[in-house]
């Protein structure tokens, strides 16, 4: 009986020790929709929530749309208004997915690993599949992740006149950076 309890305790302790869902509330998303005629539609959100489960490879992030900061107040207003991201109606954007080649990443060994991430991005109330390459950097207890991808605004129902006029890129690039400690 004692042995059974001890074994159960060990299993539980091991599970807790290796409970691998790491989170941060300070991930960064850079959004770049600049074009040759307008360099202003570029923003950064530094308060993104992100998670990484090193056991299952599940990754996720949530971003408040109004937290994207532009240098120009007018562009920020445009970004949030109904003609673009409509942040009143759709206050957050999110991603849930998984690292496809999880077996290639050794989270207990320092190194830089190339991974492929597959999942679903929800933006402007529309959910679409996304697949991208990402880099995972393991250094001691720190795990840094970086991913670059682009999205077609049209796919997410974003069709403002500025896009048609070439002032906003039709496929802005998005960079997601997260550090888990």
């Amino acid at each position: 009986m004692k042995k059974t309890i001890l074994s159960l305790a060990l299993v539980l302790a091991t599970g807790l020790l290796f409970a691998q869902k790491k989170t941060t509330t300070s991930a960064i998303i850079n959004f770049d929709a600049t074009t040759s005629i307008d360099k202003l539609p570029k923003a950064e959100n530094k308060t993104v929530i992100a998670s990484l489960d090193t056991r299952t490879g599940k990754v996720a992030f949530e971003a408040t749309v109004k937290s994207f900061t532009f240098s120009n107040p007018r562009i920020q207003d445009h970004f949030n208004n109904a003609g673009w991201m409509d942040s009143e109606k759709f206050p957050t954007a999110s991603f849930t997915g998984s690292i496809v080649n999880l077996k290639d990443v050794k989270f207990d060994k320092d190194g830089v690993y190339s991974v492929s991430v597959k999942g679903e991005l929800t933006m402007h109330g529309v959910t679409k599949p996304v697949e991208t390459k990402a880099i995972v950097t393991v250094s001691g207890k720190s795990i840094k992740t970086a991913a670059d991808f682009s999205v077609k605004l049209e796919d997410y129902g974003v069709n403002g006149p500025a896009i048609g006029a070439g002032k906003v890129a039709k496929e802005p690039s998005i960079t997601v950076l997260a550090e888990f400690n």
Partner: protein
Amino acid sequence: MLTKKITKGYKKWLIILFVSLLAAAAVVWYLFTLKYDDTATVKADYTVNAADFIKEFRQDMKAANTKYSEKIIVVNGTVSAIEAADTTMNIKMIDTAQNGAYIIFAFQQQHLAEAKAMKEGDKVSIKGSCSNGAFSNILETEYITFKRCAVNTEK
């Protein structure tokens, strides 16, 4: 006589066109170079205590967002965590008594040194633009984000 009249009229329209073009260029230049003011110099719309502020959002998220979103707010509270975000720092006030709900402050570039000087447990007064409150499915708690923050020096 007639030629003089035509020349005079032509000149008048040329001046109007020139002034209009100048005005349009000035408006475009103004709009394109518009920047946010330094938050430290902007008058706050509200001054709140962190725990009460979180409570207000948890009780009615929609009403709180309507009231506070995009407003300049001074939040008084205790620093619970300092999180590095690339080359910047975010300050967090967490309310463990309210399901770990938290407020997070991203600082304006010119005020980053103020955030870097803060330590956990410090009682601080931060002024910033309240973005929004929301529920996190990842953390399973409520959170409120601030942007363009600075240490509040107003009394």
